[in-house]
């Protein structure tokens, strides 16, 4: 593939998985430093772990910044437009941001999944495209996450645990205001949930449209705002929200569960682990997935087209996808791996009880379609919440 990289100081086209370290390590050391952005607030400690390992191994300094995804995206787009160098070399960015970033030409054209040595066990489902959008290996996920239904087992008996969306609604009707649903536009667990509801209730052509990854964000928004197909979804939400609590974000939902105000809520698996480790959730907290599937997603690490330290960035991404770090991440952050050779069997039993049980994961994980989820969220606001 032809390169759009602006500041290459080595011959990228020559790099293969086999000669990767021979070419890239010297180039990276010559570059001396690498700048990394992290968009995920709760991932700071994980990256600190990676950076420690990276600096120790290669002696290359990592300049690390926590950023806000939306702002950093806009920044990169603006800088790219202005023709300046990117302020970042390796950007850990939202999986759903790929359409935005790639259409602005921000993503560096590097077939990372084909040439990084540590990507030799990479899940083929994500290797060349992401949620239906081809990226040629330039936008590899380094972390998978899963939206789920979380519950406090101290209040929800196993026999009462809803297994389907209908059962969830029934449970909520029986236990008014004990179910928390995150507002889609304020948290991915809510966005994932609304898309999952749609997946559950739509059939035929409607479902085809719902899963048409070729739709642009605008097309999705138009469809969501106007299509009759979604009536069942709106109907479900109307009923659900009359008996459930709509929350202001993922953390908001979890906080209410910790306060014993909610017993069930829409959550992210990895965030739950962070809260469990921080003792912000009761240790009776458990996860499950509903039948017909709930959205699973992931976040990527990529090299911007106008990055200054491309080699070092590639080296950092390579280490991030390495088995050691991925295992550490799974154990400590409940961060699932796109590596095919890493499963929850490797996790300690103490951690495992807070992960999704293998009876539902990955069986009920459905691929995310964030542009559509976002469109549904906005339409929900317009059609249900504002009426």
């Amino acid at each position, binding site marked *: 593939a032809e390169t759009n990289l602006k500041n290459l100081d080595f011959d990228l086209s020559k790099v293969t998985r086999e000669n990767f370290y021979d070419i890239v390590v010297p180039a990276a050391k010559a570059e001396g430093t690498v700048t990394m952005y992290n968009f995920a607030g709760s991932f700071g400690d994980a990256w600190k772990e990676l950076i420690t390992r990276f600096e120790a191994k290669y002696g290359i300094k990592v300049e*690390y910044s*926590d950023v806000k995804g939306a*702002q950093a995206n806009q920044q990169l787009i*603006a*800088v790219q437009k202005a023709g300046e160098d990117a302020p970042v070399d390796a950007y850990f960015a939202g999986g759903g941001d790929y359409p935005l970033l790639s259409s602005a030409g921000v993503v560096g054209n590097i077939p990372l999944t084909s040439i990084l040595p540590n990507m030799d066990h990479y899940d083929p489902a994500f290797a060349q495209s992401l949620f239906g959008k081809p990226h040629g290996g330039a936008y590899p996920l380094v972390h998978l996450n899963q939206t789920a239904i979380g519950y406090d087992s101290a209040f929800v008996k196993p026999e009462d645990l809803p297994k389907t969306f209908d059962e969830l609604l029934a449970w909520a009707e029986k236990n008014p205001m004990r179910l928390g649903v995150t507002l889609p536009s304020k*948290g991915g667990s809510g966005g994932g949930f609304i898309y999952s509801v749609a997946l559950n209730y739509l059939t035929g052509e409607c479902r085809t449209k719902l899963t048409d990854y070729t739709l642009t964000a605008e097309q999705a928004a138009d469809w969501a705002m106007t299509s009759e197909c979604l009536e069942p979804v709106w109907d479900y939400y109307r009923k659900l929200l009359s008996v459930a609590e709509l929350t202001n974000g993922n*953390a908001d939902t979890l906080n209410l569960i910790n306060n*014993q105000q909610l017993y069930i809520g829409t959550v992210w698996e990895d965030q739950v682990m962070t809260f469990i480790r921080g*003792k*912000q959730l009761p240790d009776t907290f458990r996860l499950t997935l509903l039948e017909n599937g709930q959205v699973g997603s992931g976040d990527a690490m990529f090299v911007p087209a106008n990055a200054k330290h491309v080699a070092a960035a590639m080296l950092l991404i390579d280490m991030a996808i390495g088995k050691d770090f991925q295992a550490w991440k799974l154990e400590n952050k409940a961060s699932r791996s796109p590596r095919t050779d890493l499963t929850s069997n490797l996790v300690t039993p103490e951690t495992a009880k807070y992960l999704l049980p293998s009876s539902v994961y990955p069986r009920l994980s459905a691929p995310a379609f964030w542009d559509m989820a976002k469109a549904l969220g906005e339409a929900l606001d317009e059609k249900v919440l504002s009426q």
Partner: protein
Amino acid sequence: MAVVAETLPKARARVFHEDDRLLVSAGLYAALGLTIALPLVLMFLWSVADGWAPPNVIPRDYTLSRWLDMIADPGLLRAALNSTVIAVVVTFATALIALPTAWAMARFPFRLKRLVEIFILAPVIIPGLVVAVGIGQVFLFLGLSYSITGVILVQIVGTLPLMIRLMTATLETIPDDLIHAARSLGAGTVGVVLHIILPLAVPGLLAGGLLSFIGSFEEFDKSFIVGAPVVETLPIKLYTFLDPYSLQLPIASIIAFILLLPALIVFVIAGRILRDDLMAAGMGKL
């Protein structure tokens, strides 16, 4: 006799009495405790709580590990240093820019004054985000984006209005005769500014300087869009942890304290030198 006894106590009860003083004190301080001190204490407890679920009214277990982790981050110190340097420069630059204009507003009658007044007030009215996004684009073009200079320039947009208003209110209180007297005693323009106007403007400069300092130290929106993440100030560094969608109470509480502490200290110290009437005149008069 009986008549007198009947009327006296009633009348006495209508005035503010020594005994009421204690009552008023107690009431006001209790209110202060409940509305300001208590939330701060609770926030502090959250920052050191190792789990705090109902029905516990106060946490059972405590940990300092979060604080230690947070403080160990070298980026924090750098951000604090950035913030301090930026705030100091912003404060002085704001005063310098504001002074001549405030003088004109205080001393010169002119026709479009109301309009100029509204324009100076406008940055308070227009949402910072709109200005910041607009300015972000302009700065990129000027090469000021992601630089300390850019952050300083954009912050002054926010601090200038209040400083001009406070200084205007202060300068209005300087009697014309003082300036005439100084001139009659042989002081030229420079002498008047140096020896009369500046010393007498000190209360306003203190109030305006203080508000500018705090305003700069805490500014997020504009600095963030113009500077982040290349230039990190304390709020930029810390607001990522206050993201409403993933905000964790223990960490947010630590961050809140780190952000608040300098401002609170400055405020308490400055409470002694601030003049209420000036603050009110600068902020409240339209």
